[in-house]
């Protein structure tokens, strides 16, 4: 028995994807998620895939696991009965939030409902100031009184979030000790551990989210571990974090809030791997599913990261309408633009698409399950890029007439357009929405979008990628194989890692190299300890960063620090690095302005395994299409016959010009007339601009 198998599982809202790697070979399985006991689908899937491979649980060396359980618990408000212990006078930080409305003109908005109702929010006298000095000692008796009330209220989990606790966590720590004495079974989250950063609302919100999902995740992970052990699994279990790293179960159980959004993070890692294999140093990952599209920038095969994420945004994906969670995340923009997104005319007769989605039930009109409104998929069926007789491998027969009828009613009539033109308008608008999101996202990161190449996956992206690429001036689009289980494939490539961020104020003109070095050393030790159970002796690497800004500004820029003790002379190099990045982002830097460091970050990780860059595939004879389909082009107003290829019949090295359609069971790829396509050595469809 050789323990050489690596298995990854991604539990999504609808599907649980399983991927098994055996040497260079890869098997995949897709099962329906079992929401009540998610581990059931996981174990079923693993059993099936092991049977496919003719192997057993005992042969598995690594089991990597990503899940949206934590996110869903927040969205569906299914977490623990959670309480909050705050500084006296600050009971309502969660409700007061940022005192604003996320929609300026809408008088009917509702604010996001806090995870902890007011009746479960308690306060105790204590106060730190901005420098971490004690202004009011912790009233320990009040903590004990609060413990009694937590008990009476039946709280299962509590977040402790005191003012300026990031600057000095002593009161929070002492409070935990007392609570543990009083209520040994209670889960306790400290804001100074989960999110040691300035701004009380985001820090409290993050601590509360952690407390809210902790009991649930804890028991799930425990059951999972036990079930695997019962199957004689003896390998290592990892969980995927929102930052795209792997973490051991022990760490995940302490900070389960870090597990939100691990699925999409897997998708970005998958895209980074595809980029590495293809040698695309600048890639834009573009993942379009049924309800949303996600876009992520990847530089040098590393996805961009951010520190703030909003869970459970109100329907319209509006910024500020969700619950903020300040944790390291792979940075993505998500917009309501998927295959099921509904198109309609607004009050100004403008074609709008999404964010409302037809979902799986009733689905787009062409599914023939009662959907009356036109979805993006309907537009594709009418344009001809989707074959109604060959959708999902022929398992679902689509109703062209229903698609036409819906477009006719909701779009064409109001604008006096033909049905085909209405379909084209929907196609153009959804492509524009994605192009616009990509453009804005790139700009926010100081990137120039047309210097990137697109990596398209998920059911809908291959149909729209060519048009999105045309709009943003991208010259190459790559559609990898296994696109339907991309996240799970990505998990297998993620390094074991942990990132800590801490606020500690320092001006560059009063740079205290010793204090900074001391802080970074401490953080390094803590991150290393959190990585150790997962790294299991593997070599680790460290990245250190400073979040800097001009004194008085609000937005920070990340500057990389050398992974060694700092010296006084480093201040000058930091200033230069900062000003260089600032000018790139904002056109001009500000002469003579002082610079300050707000926060510091240390990331410890094992080496990320990047695939070797592949060679060119030897040319093969030009492939023969399996047929032709009429596709409508709105710009010329003409329908043209477009050759159709089956993906599995295209060996590496095949080359053919657009327009063309490549059909496969999971999706179809549309290659527009401005692109030529070939299949690379790893089976990706690569489209290149003809005029590039």
């Amino acid at each position, binding site marked *: 028995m050789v323990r050489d198998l690596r298995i990854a599982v991604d539990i999504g809202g609808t599907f649980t994807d399983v991927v098994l790697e055996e040497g260079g070979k890869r098997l995949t399985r897709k099962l329906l998620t079992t929401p009540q006991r998610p581990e059931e689908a996981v174990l079923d899937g693993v059993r099936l895939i092991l049977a496919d491979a003719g192997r057993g649980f005992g042969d598995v060396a690594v089991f990597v696991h990503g899940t949206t359980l934590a996110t869903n618990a927040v969205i569906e408000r299914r977490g623990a009965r959670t309480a909050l212990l705050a500084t*006296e*006078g*600050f009971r*309502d930080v969660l*409700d*007061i939030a*940022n*005192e*604003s*409305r996320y929609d*300026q*003109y*809408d*008088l*009917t908005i*509702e*604010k996001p409902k806090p995870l902890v*109702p*007011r009746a479960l929010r308690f306060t105790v006298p204590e106060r730190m*100031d*901005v420098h971490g000095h004690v*202004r009011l000692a912790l009233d320990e008796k009040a903590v004990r009184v609060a413990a009694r009330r937590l008990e009476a209220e039946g709280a299962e989990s509590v977040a402790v979030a005191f*003012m300026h606790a990031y600057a000095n966590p002593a009161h929070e720590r002492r409070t935990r000790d007392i609570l543990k004495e009083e209520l040994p079974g209670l889960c306790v989250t400290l804001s100074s551990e989960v999110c040691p950063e*300035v*701004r*009380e*609302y985001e820090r409290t919100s993050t601590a509360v989210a952690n407390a809210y999902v902790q009991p649930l995740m804890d028991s799930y992970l425990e059951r999972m571990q036990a079930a695997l052990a019962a199957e004689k699994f003896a390998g290592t279990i990892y969980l995927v974090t929102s930052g795209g790293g792997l973490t051991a179960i022990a760490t995940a159980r302490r900070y389960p809030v870090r597990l939100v959004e691990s699925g999409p993070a897997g998708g970005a890692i998958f895209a980074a791997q595809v980029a590495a294999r293809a040698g695309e140093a600048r890639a834009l990952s573009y993942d379009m599913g049924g309800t949303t599209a996600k876009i992520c920038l990847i530089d040098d095969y590393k996805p961009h990261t951010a520190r703030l994420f909003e869970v459970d945004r109100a329907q319209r994906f509006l910024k500020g309408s969700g619950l903020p969670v300040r944790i390291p995340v792979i940075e993505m923009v998500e917009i309501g633009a998927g295959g099921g997104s509904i198109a309609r005319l*607004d*009050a*100004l007769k*403008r*074609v709008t698409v999404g964010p409302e989605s037809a979902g799986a039930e009733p689905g787009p009109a062409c599914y023939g399950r009662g959907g009356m409104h036109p979805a993006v998929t309907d537009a594709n069926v009418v344009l001809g890029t989707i074959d109604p007789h060959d959708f999902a491998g022929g398992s679902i027969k689509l109703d062209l007439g229903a698609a036409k009828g819906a477009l006719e009613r909701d779009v064409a009539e109001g604008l*006096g*357009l*033909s049905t085909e*033109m209405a379909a084209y*308008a929907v196609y*153009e*608008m959804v492509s*524009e*929405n994605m192009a*616009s999101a990509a453009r*804005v996202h790139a*700009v*926010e990161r100081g990137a120039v979008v047309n210097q990137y190449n697109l990596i398209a996956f998920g059911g809908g992206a291959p149909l729209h990628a060519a048009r999105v690429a045309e709009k943003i*001036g991208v010259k190459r689009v790559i559609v990898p194989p296994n696109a339907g289980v991309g996240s799970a494939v990505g998990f297998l490539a993620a390094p074991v890692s942990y990132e800590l961020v801490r606020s500690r*104020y320092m001006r560059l003109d009063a740079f205290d190299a010793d204090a900074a070095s001391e802080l970074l050393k401490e953080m390094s030790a803590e991150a290393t300890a959190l990585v150790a159970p997962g790294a299991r002796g593997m070599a680790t690497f460290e990245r250190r960063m400073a979040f800097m800004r001009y*004194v*008085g500004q*609000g*937005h920070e820029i990340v500057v990389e620090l050398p992974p060694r003790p700092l010296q006084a002379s480093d201040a000058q190099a930091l200033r230069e690095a900062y000003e260089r990045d600032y000018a790139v*982002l*904002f*056109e*001009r830097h*500000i002469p003579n*302005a*002082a610079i300050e460091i707000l926060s510091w970050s240390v990331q410890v990780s094992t080496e990320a395994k990047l695939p070797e860059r592949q060679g060119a595939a030897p040319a093969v004879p030009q492939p023969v299409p399996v047929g032709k389909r009429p596709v409508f082009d*709105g710009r010329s*107003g003409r329908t043209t016959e477009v050759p159709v290829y089956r993906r599995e019949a295209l060996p590496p090295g095949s080359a053919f010009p657009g327009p063309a359609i490549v059909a496969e069971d999971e999706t179809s790829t549309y290659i527009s007339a401005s692109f030529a396509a070939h299949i690379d050595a790893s089976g990706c469809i690569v489209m290149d601009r003809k005029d590039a």
Partner: protein
Amino acid sequence: MSQSNSVGLIDLQIMWNRLIAVVEEQAQTLMRTAFSPIVRECGDLSAGVFDLEGRMLAQAVTGTPGHVNSMAESVKHFLRYFPVETMKAGDAYITNDPWMGTGHLNDFVITTPCFRNGKLVALFSCTSHLMDIGGIGFGPDATDVFMEGLYIPMLKLFDQGQVNETLMAMIRANTRLPVDTEGDVYSLAGCNDVGARRLVEMMDEFGIESLDQLGDHIIARSREAVLAEIAKLPKGTWHNEMMIDGYDEPLTLKATLTISDSGIHVDYSGTSPASGRGINVPHAYTTAYTVFGLGCVVATHIPNNAGSLEPLTVSAPADTILNAPKPNAVASRHIIGQMLPDVTFGCLRQVVPDRVPAEGTSCLWNINVRGHVKGGEGGNYGFGMAITSNGGTGARADKDGLSATAYPSGVRGTPVEIAETQTPLIFWRKEFRPDSGGAGRTRGGLGQIMEIESGIAEPFDLLAAFDRIDYPPRGRDGGKDGEAGFVGLKSGQTLKGKGFQLIPPGDRLVVMTPGGAGIGKPGERDRVQVANDLADGLISQETAEQVYEFKPPKAAE
């Protein structure tokens, strides 16, 4: 419709969306690069793109209404001083004239011409609130505008890329916060450059030489859409009157609203005369907030631009407080300006009662503080900050009001931990103020209680600019008034709602923001909601029983 026209229509729609994305990016850039905490933390700014006639084509969603709609007028003034034929690439123009900008000296407006292939194609404009512009400071005590700080007429900030050093030196010399103020000027100019670059890219992509056709399309479509909404309303004239605290005597705000086929007009005849202090409102700012209030009720989802604004018009007799000419003092013009949606709502309530909320706090309850620290640290003289905070909004017909939330202003509250980073103050309390939401079938939003102390052995200045202390938001249809605001010292003394006052070290400033008013009889409120409010401590036992006529269910435990 011919095929090419169809494509043309689709492209126009796509470019319209793009234009909105461009100005949003302009606004986000401004927010990320701003120094002034009220801009970077709270979003007190606005950004937009204009055609060569000064018509606003798109505005950023990020920003605040008072800025947006007055900036829309401001660009026309710029065009009078700097005619298009004199504009050069690399130019940028500036003013803080309250009557040609956004209503007080603290707001700098910068307008930048956008050139493509050497040809002027559009104007980008933006404005933000700078924390200190010298003079008496950001409070209502001045008796004329000259006391309120540095007055910058229409000037060139950049001349073909060269910064106007003389002007910059003047600005630096006339503010207590020279470092922040200079930084903010650069940040304003920079965000216009970002917008201009994106616009040129869009025009390249779509191969258009001017914005004429797109501009006409946007303006015509938006105007039609607003007129179509107005057509659904009954025609006629309605009146409303509201009393507010004023500086040293109560003021009457009186509105006459007329709905006709051509639009909605609001006239403020009968409103009190201009005040001797800095709470006067220039006409553009009066228009800005009136039109914003109308838009919220009548045209919620129609983008803001010259077309959608056109059918909504406002007049106020000269020398009333809502059309106060130069040299009246105007620094705190937002207190009264922000009341205008409520004044207009009082008329609209008689037309479409279900779409209109009860009166709310309306004006921002910004805690404007100033103080001295040792030796001009960091190049600034002491500290100055507007700590934005809010009371409750009025109840909606089918929902409670929002607690501690800005309306109509679009700014965000200042995080306490950020306020304490920027100033040597300590907040001892910032939480909901129970029983402050006006009782009703739907309840008004709650105000909040704040207690603030100097963290050093020095006093600090309060530049009070609060209202609704003597005249709280009024309930309707049997709903109760919101709780009035309060300003005082912890030691017991009541402070004035307006004007400069000193908070001694060791004592605490206590600020209680008003609650929004309620709608309908409290006895008709859903009993579950009353029980929840009671359990959450949002209302007291006494209020539950006496005002809501709540009889607690017999204890089963």
